[in-house]
């Protein structure tokens, strides 16, 4: 096995079995905030236990090990095809070792060949930068929470949402309302304002690479993030939709340019089992640092 493949396997193992520190802290904070003796509190306690147990046993946090999304920052001239081959080999091995469930199904035939390899699986996003380091971030995105994601085209008549920030706020909060607890809340929202339909969703997912306590450098978006987070937590949906104070753990929003003719707001919902880790790699493929 190449050094790169071994490093990527370790990245997959850790991502599938351990939530990053920022998410763990947010869950513990919310446990403090919930009223004692409620079913919301007991749901969060079980979630907390599950996080501990998965890490201790080095077994998947959730049995749905999700869509496999790699985000790679690479130096100019890096061989992306060789990287892709190593990533595929690492995914196959992680599946054989049980860090990933056999989770990828041919959409036409319904056949699951048990490899997690196929069109769209895994997905790799490459991005060149003028630095010698390779940074690899991995998100495992569950299906239940993916199903409650939503894309709105503004203006939106029924919600009375116009093409402005108040309109964006209305549709994002509508997505939270529609999701209830069905995406295994408490959840984290990744939102993109603008773009074409597919780019917009893609950028919404990239927001999951940000840590939960970070603040948006754009004051208008920062305000919207805090506002949606606070408002959502006043809706009383709560963990698993049981009612309670913790509906969301975080909201991350970006804006990209759009055509004059369209105005999309894309909302991706991440479950509490927020699996995201990252590493920097030496040219040899060895892990030099964990990023989260």
């Amino acid at each position, binding site marked *: 096995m190449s050094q790169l493949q071994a490093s990527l396997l370790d990245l997959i193992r850790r991502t599938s079995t351990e939530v990053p520190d920022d998410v763990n802290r947010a869950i513990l904070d919310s446990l403090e905030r919930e009223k004692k003796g409620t*079913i919301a509190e*007991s*749901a969060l306690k*079980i*979630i907390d*236990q*599950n996080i501990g*147990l*998965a890490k201790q*046993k080095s*077994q*998947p*946090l*959730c*049995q*749905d090990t999700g869509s496999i999304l790699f985000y790679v920052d690479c130096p100019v001239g890096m061989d992306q095809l060789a990287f892709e081959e190593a990533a595929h080999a690492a995914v196959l091995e992680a599946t054989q070792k*049980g860090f990933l*469930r056999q989770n990828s199904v041919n959409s036409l035939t319904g056949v699951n060949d048990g490899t997690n390899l196929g069109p769209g699986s895994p997905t790799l996003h490459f991005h060149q930068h003028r630095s010698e380091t390779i940074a690899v971030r991995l998100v495992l995105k*569950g299906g*239940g929470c993916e*199903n409650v994601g939503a894309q709105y085209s503004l203006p939106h008549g029924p919600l009375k949402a116009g093409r402005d920030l108040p309109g964006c706020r*209305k549709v994002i*909060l*509508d997505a939270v*309302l529609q999701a*209830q*607890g*069905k995406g*295994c809340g408490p959840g984290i929202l990744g939102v993109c304002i603008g773009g074409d339909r597919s780019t917009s969703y893609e950028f919404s997912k990239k927001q999951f690479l940000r840590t939960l306590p970070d603040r948006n450098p754009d004051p208008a978006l920062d305000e919207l993030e805090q506002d949606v987070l606070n*408002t959502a937590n*006043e*809706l*009383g*949906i*709560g963990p*698993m*939709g*049981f*009612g309670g104070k913790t509906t969301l753990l975080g909201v991350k929003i970006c804006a990209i340019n759009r055509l004059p003719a369209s105005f999309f707001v894309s909302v991706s919902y991440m*479950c*509490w*089992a927020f699996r995201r880790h990252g590493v920097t790699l030496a040219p040899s493929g060895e892990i030099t640092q964990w990023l989260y």
Partner: protein
Amino acid sequence: MTPLKVPIDESTIRSLKVGDAVSISGTVYTGRDRVHKFLHDGGTLPQGLSLRGGIIYHCGPVVIQDADGQWKVTAAGPTTSIREEPYQAQIIRDLGLRAVIGKGGMGDQTLAACKEFGCVYLHAIGGAAQVLAECVTQVSNVYFREEFGSPEAIWELQIVNFPAVVTMDSHGRSLHAEVLQASQEALARHL
């Protein structure tokens, strides 16, 4: 937490209310899409298998066989229940189920069947695969494994102190409907 031992009688089920935390012990049977469709379309359970007074669990467990041929559950979280809504009411009636375990809640037909036949919907913690697998102490049997594949088979599991919450009771109340309505009203105040 209210302890719940399978088999469960009707008066125990009728005493449960939305919001009660329960801790389940005894035998449960997994069943998801294939099983529900099969039973709904007139399929019958294997000879000798009865779920009367029992529990069906919407779950596709990860089960491995050890060196001695023993089955072992390594992940056992709930799957989304609403997919079984077209079938569940009939299956509660025909099989005499006293409880359904799953996640995300179910609709009006299931709620009505819970009221009519004395059944509850128990919400397990979505994603808590490891905690819930620890509650499974033994795999006693498996049915339809060849026909439906491992995750879709009926696994007969012995569970101990499996935590869940009553979110739909046998008196017509649904926590899901109530939280939806309350959150809709709360959102209207914030817009």
